[in-house]
């Protein structure tokens, strides 16, 4: 059994009127089964309202399943006694960096989690130092969070989670409010954590470029997991993704269009380098290139 497992998970938002009568029920997550292995980099994709954020909040016991169950390291999230253990094991980073930084100084914010876990003072300082170094924000430790850029703030948020020594980090659209540079910064930091420290990463996003490096991708639509597999397999199904209102990475799309117009390219090209390599191969063998030039 992996670190996080969801069995037939369903969650309903119930809207009530002023008297408390049920006005409407929204089934945000519907029959989801997941099994995530320790050390994996997992991406969950989906357009707005597909239920991916709701799903993420279950991994941290912020929401409890309406039906089915979620297990984190063998503990049931519905069990009130293990809530704090679960939140320590599976840390969570949210979308808006401003709304999750509590401290008025970077280092104090990173120390907030360990303080809550009753870690002794000297160890808090050690943890703060190592976590800030892990995301490359150590030299900003004395700064006020208000003076940092979006990407930097989000890296501080990540450091704040790492300081709790989680085995898994769930990032709920961490880059949605950032500029392209900030996005790169954050994703680089997350990948480094995954590779260097072996922390399981669950990245929820709708930016396809960020998913390329994942070990496994889940695509959600209307509360259900509709596709799952390696990025290459997922992105080779361009038509299907479009139907789910998702874009494939630009390079993949280019390769797809080239293939459609006759070039013998393989499916699911994910990076620019890959496409260049494939095109070079074609040029050497001489096939197809003439065709493109001709048409």
């Amino acid at each position: 059994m992996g670190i996080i497992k969801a069995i037939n998970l369903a969650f309903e938002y119930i809207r009530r009127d002023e008297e408390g009568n049920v006005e409407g029920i929204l089934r945000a997550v519907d029959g989801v089964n997941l099994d995530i292995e320790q050390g994996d980099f997992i991406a969950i994709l989906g357009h707005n309202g597909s239920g991916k954020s709701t799903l993420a909040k279950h991994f941290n016991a912020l929401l409890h399943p309406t039906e089915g169950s979620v297990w984190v390291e063998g503990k049931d999230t519905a069990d009130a006694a293990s809530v704090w253990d679960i939140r320590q094991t599976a840390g969570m980073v949210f979308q808006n960096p401003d709304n999750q930084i509590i401290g008025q100084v970077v280092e104090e914010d990173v120390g907030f989690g360990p303080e809550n876990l009753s870690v002794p003072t000297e160890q808090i300082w050690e943890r703060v130092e190592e976590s800030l170094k892990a995301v490359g924000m150590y030299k900003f430790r004395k700064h006020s969070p208000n003076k940092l850029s979006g990407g930097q703030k989000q890296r501080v948020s990540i450091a704040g989670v790492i300081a709790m020594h989680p085995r898994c980090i769930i990032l709920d659209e961490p880059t949605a409010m950032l500029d392209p540079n900030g996005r790169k910064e954050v994703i680089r930091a997350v990948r480094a954590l995954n590779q260097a420290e072996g922390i399981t990463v669950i990245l929820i996003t709708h930016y396809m470029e960020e998913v390329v490096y994942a070990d496994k991708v889940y695509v959600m639509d209307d509360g259900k997991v509709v596709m799952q597999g390696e990025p290459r397999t997922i992105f080779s199904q361009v038509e299907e993704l479009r139907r789910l209102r998702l874009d494939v990475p630009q390079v993949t799309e280019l390769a797809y269009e080239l293939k459609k117009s006759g070039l013998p390219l393989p499916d699911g090209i994910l990076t620019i380098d890959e496409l260049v390599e494939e095109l070079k191969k074609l040029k050497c063998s001489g096939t197809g290139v003439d065709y493109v030039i001709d048409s």
Partner: protein
Amino acid sequence: MLRDITLGQYYQTESVIHRLDPRVKLVATICYILSLFLVDSVWGYLAAGLFLAVMIRLSHVPFKFMVKGMKAIILLLALTVAFNLFLTPGEPLVSVWKLTITKEGVRVAVMMAVRLTFLIIGSSVMTLTTTPNNLTDGMEKLMKPLRKIRVPVHEIAMMMSIALRFIPILLEETDKIMKAQIARGADFESGSILKKARALVPLLVPLFISAFRRANDLAMAMEARCYRGGDNRTKMKPLIYQRRDRLAYIVLALYLVGCFVIG
């Protein structure tokens, strides 16, 4: 422009006063204010003035920053002096039209002016040398005994520090909303006070909504980081009394005794 606002009025520099435990400074400020209302002679005021002058000198904060705090209360000061000057009954000194200045009036007016000035400058010494964060920490620890009578001390301190963290963010947001509305023809500048106040309503509504949303997000983020109130929490920067803090308490005690003796 709103981004530049500094909160509290902390003045960053190195000094003994800066390094003191915030609890010492809080207690000292309270005692000092009390002493101002206890003394009742010229010598007492001189002692208070001397004590204040030494503290200012030790704090390495330029004197003009201390006086800045006075600007806010200049009107209050003028009114107090005027009322005391003219309305204290006693032996008449000068009489102009219906107003009479009495000898007692002059005495009380001067005393009140000195008291208020010392009070404001005295508390400025504290706020200028202590970061708002440190101050809330100090208050939390000082008020800890109140928990026995169910005062939610930790919660109050947490609320204060979160408020301090969000004030700049909300100010920035106000600025943004204001600009967005000005761009669509809103007018915040002209008209009477009433009209200006009414123009602020469409500004406050979105601001409140966003503040609630932020509060919701923050609460969730705090829970996700295992926050469950003040019990069993350790401190990253615990307040521990050092030798200099004990010394400071002794100095304070000596000052208080001195004040009592002089009167």
